């Protein structure tokens, strides 16, 4: 039997066992529904909050000659104005209510609103009336229409932004990076706890002695970590699939390009972070004896993770290329949480990303070695044991 077959069998058992649990099924469904719901909200909420996306204006027969101009100007303004022919009545308010109108153009120079003036409609009517009157006015002054237009052409004013547009885009990017860091921390904590609790359970129900009689500690550890990584990938895959389907179904919703890149990078950091941290979770889990010890056992793993999280959210966005940001984005224990924010904040480079990824892979190999020894030294102990003592015991 190849040395990797036991790893595969352990990973397969982890996946199949947890796939059947109601908690896994419900959490996967919840994430998928959250994505689809979020996208649906993106599609429909603007309509819900926009009280009246189209405006309706009644046009009495005396003003009908203005209709074409009104349509042209409304289109130029980017407004959807529906023109409704109405007959003049005694009570304009009732006509408005009956026809669901925002205003009535009673005569070419008389516009009536219900209770408040709509500045946009007013501007459209003024401009349309001006356009209609322009040829006659030009002729009376002895000018051609073109000459008249030139005369009233507005002076060009240069318009600039005090904040450059690309910097504004960086704010979006930073937002995406921050969200990615929060999601990464949550995912690494969640899947890490699965590993931790799984190891403690195997130890407390003593099945680990039967397992270690037939597989080596590194095979058991690696299988467990890869199995839970597989479960994470299934959930990530389901989430991304829901996102992709939603993008097709809800045609009005689009993701900014930066978000697509950030998602791809977040998945990469998540996979690397899970590999590194979950071996550490497994090692500290082996030192505990009961499930109740889980929270105290995980403290040494949580410390660097939380430190990286707060630095990533508070310090790095303002100082993406500071020495501390640079160092923490390259240090394997903090890289998965710090590097995404650093990149999103405009720092980092392709070389640094490659260095960080390479460092994490090398550190993961080292952590597998270290975790296997701690695991071996601690897993058959019936009393709580320290990390160093467990390591020494495995070498004794």
């Amino acid at each position, binding site marked *: *039997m190849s*040395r990797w077959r*036991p790893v595969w*069998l*352990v990973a397969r*058992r982890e996946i199949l*066992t947890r796939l059947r649990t109601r908690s896994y099924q419900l959490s996967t469904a919840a994430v998928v529904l959250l994505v689809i719901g979020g996208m649906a909200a993106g599609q429909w909420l603007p309509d819900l909050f926009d009280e009246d996306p189209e405006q309706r204006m009644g046009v009495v027969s005396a003003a009908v000659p203005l209709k074409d101009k009104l349509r042209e100007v409304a289109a130029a303004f980017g407004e959807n104005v529906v023109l409704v022919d109405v007959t003049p009545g005694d009570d304009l308010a009732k006509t408005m209510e009956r026809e669901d109108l925002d205003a009535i153009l009673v005569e070419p120079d008389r516009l009536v609103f219900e209770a408040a003036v709509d500045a946009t409609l007013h501007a459209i009517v003024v401009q349309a009336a001006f356009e209609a009157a322009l040829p006659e006015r030009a002729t009376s002054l002895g000018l051609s229409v073109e000459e008249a237009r030139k005369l009233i052409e507005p002076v060009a004013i240069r318009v600039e932004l005090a904040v450059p547009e690309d910097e504004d885009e960086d704010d979006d990017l930073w937002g995406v990076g921050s969200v990615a860091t929060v999601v990464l921390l949550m995912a690494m904590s969640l899947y890490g706890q699965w590993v931790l609790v799984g190891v403690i359970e195997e130890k407390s*129900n*003593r*099945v*680990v*002695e*039967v*397992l*270690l*009689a*037939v*597989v*080596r500690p590194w095979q058991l550890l690696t299988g467990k970590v890869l199995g839970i990584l597989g479960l994470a990938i299934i959930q990530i895959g389901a989430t991304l699939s829901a996102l992709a389907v939603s993008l097709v179904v809800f045609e009005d919703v689009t993701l900014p390009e930066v978000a697509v890149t950030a998602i791809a990078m977040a998945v990469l950091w998540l996979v690397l972070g899970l590999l590194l941290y979950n071996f550490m979770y497994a090692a500290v889990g082996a030192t505990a004896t009961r499930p109740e010890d889980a929270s105290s056992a995980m403290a040494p793993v949580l410390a660097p993770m939380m430190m990286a999280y707060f630095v990533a959210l508070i310090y790095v966005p303002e100082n993406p290329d500071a020495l501390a940001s640079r160092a923490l984005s390259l240090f394997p224990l903090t890289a998965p949480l710090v590097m995404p924010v650093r990149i999103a904040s405009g720092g980092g480079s392709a070389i640094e990303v490659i260095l960080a990824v390479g460092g994490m892979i090398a550190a993961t190999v080292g952590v597998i070695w270290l975790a296997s020894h701690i695991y071996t030294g601690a897993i*058959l102990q019936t009393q709580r044991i320290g990390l160093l003592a467990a390591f020494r015991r*495995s070498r*004794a």
Partner: protein
Amino acid sequence: MLRFERLTKRYGDVVALDGASLAVASGRMVGFLGPNGSGKTTAMRSIFGLVRLDEGRVLWDGQPVEGSVARRFGYMPESRGLYPKMPVREQVEYFAMLHGADRTAARRQAEHWLGVLGLSDRVDSRVETLSHGNQQRVQLAVSLAFESDLLVLDEPFSGLDPLAVRTMGDVIRQEAARGAGVLFSSHQLDLVEDLCDDVVIIDHGRVVLSGPLEDVRSASPHRYVEVRGEAAAEPWHRAFAGAEVVEEHQRSVRLRVDAKSDPGAILAAASAAGHVDGFRFEPPSLADLFVEAVRR
């Protein structure tokens, strides 16, 4: 053949194994006996590399036991260990595959052994829903679910009812008949006496007695005499040098005498002292051997 060569293991000041050596031949059932804390479990764990030895070697057919070799061994640890929420058949299949069986063979073996052990109707039940005795049967099935070369069973009969003990004993005997070596520990000495071919007694980490059961019984320097009837109450045994009362009741007495003693002379002395209803002169039982070995 499994061989321990001078195994030594210390935990601080505590000596768990002190140069222990023994052998388990293929097809032989070896009863591994010793008081609590004598080193049995440590020795059994060392076969699977679960204990890092200070000195000594564990050999299989002359070669050190490594991963691929240990996968051919079945193990039932003293502290039972199963996945509580995993269905019975799936659990047995899983361990069979870890031992190298493919999925089809693992399924076949799981169904075979669960049938033999009377669990056919519980194959889809979660282990945690079974009684203690049935969980123990599943544990045995896990250690049997591939054709192992060696079975290492630490206290396989503890906590079982007599019917389950008989079933389990039959199964282990069949495995030995197939050719597997069996090393098992137990405090139920009468049961071990019925089952084992060879016996190894360990005390304070040292093997103090070992060999085929009949040989070690015959080689003992003592014989045991049981007398029933009126004579049991009389002190006639004082006439025999070295005779020692090991058990005394109102109408029976059990003596340890020198192996070279003449049973005819003993019976004559007892009969002269009073009426004799029953008389036995025999080599030591396994329980006698155990007491002799560990009290030295």
